[in-house]
C-alpha cells in the first residue's frame, strides 16, 4: 500500500485567489496523479505529474489554471489559480504501486475546497 497525506485538508477561499495543495507520499513513486471530485460527482483526472518533466494535462484542464510541481519522487503540489465558485471540489492526489501483478492506485484523503 501507500501512505499519502495532503495539506490542507480543507479550505475556504475567496474568488480570484489561488490555493496550493500539497501531496506527500511515504516512499518514492514515478507517477503521481491529481483528480478533482465535484460535489456529488465521481473523480475526474486533472493531470499526471512525473518528476523532472512537465505535467500532462487532460482535456479541459490547462497549466495556467492548475499549475503542478513535482520537485522530487515523494512530493507534488497542485495550485488552483484565480479561483471561482465552480472550482469548489475535493482535490485528490494518488500514486500507483505494483500490488502482485497489477498496478494499484492509492489515494490521499483529499482537500475539500470551497470558493466563495
Amino acid at each position, binding site marked *: 500500500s501507500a501512505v499519502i497525506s495532503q495539506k490542507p485538508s480543507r479550505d475556504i477561499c475567496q474568488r480570484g485567489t489561488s490555493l496550493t495543495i500539497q501531496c506527500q507520499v511515504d516512499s518514492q513513486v514515478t507517477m503521481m496523479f491529481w483528480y478533482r471530485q465535484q460535489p456529488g460527482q*465521481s*473523480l*475526474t*483526472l486533472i493531470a499526471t505529474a512525473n518528476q523532472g518533466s512537465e505535467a*500532462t494535462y*487532460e482535456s479541459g484542464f490547462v497549466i495556467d489554471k492548475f499549475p503542478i510541481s513535482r520537485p522530487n519522487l515523494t512530493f507534488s503540489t497542485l495550485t488552483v489559480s484565480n479561483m471561482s465558485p465552480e472550482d469548489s471540489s475535493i482535490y485528490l492526489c494518488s500514486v500507483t504501486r505494483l*500490488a502482485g501483478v*497489477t*498496478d494499484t492506485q492509492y489515494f490521499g*484523503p483529499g482537500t475539500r475546497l470551497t470558493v466563495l
Partner: protein
Amino acid sequence: TQLLEQSPQFLSIQEGENLTVYCNSSSVFSSLQWYRQEPGEGPVLLVTVVTGGEVKKLKRLTFQFGDARKDSSLHITAAQTGDTGLYLCAGEYSNSGYALNFGKGTSLLVTP
C-alpha cells in the same frame, strides 16, 4: 475517454438485504478496480480484477469481472450499516499511463 457506466446511482436498503452494483463499458480494460469512499475521505481500494471471468470475495462482498473484461459487478450479501458509502468502479486506460477512468459511483445507504 473510455466511459464507465455504473448502476444504480443511488440505493437505499435495510440491514440484512442483498444488493448488486453494476459497472459497464464498451471498452476493454486491462484491469478494473472497485473503491469505497466515505464522506471526507479519499477512495479506498477494495479489489482489483484482471482476468476475464474472475471472481473475488472479500468477506460479504463478491466481485466479478466479465468474460470480455468490459463489465464488472459488486454483490454485497446481508448488508450492514457500515457498508454505507460511495462505491466507485474504475478502469485503467492507457492514454495517461496508469491513471484511472472512474464511473459516476453508486451511493449506498444501509439503514437499521
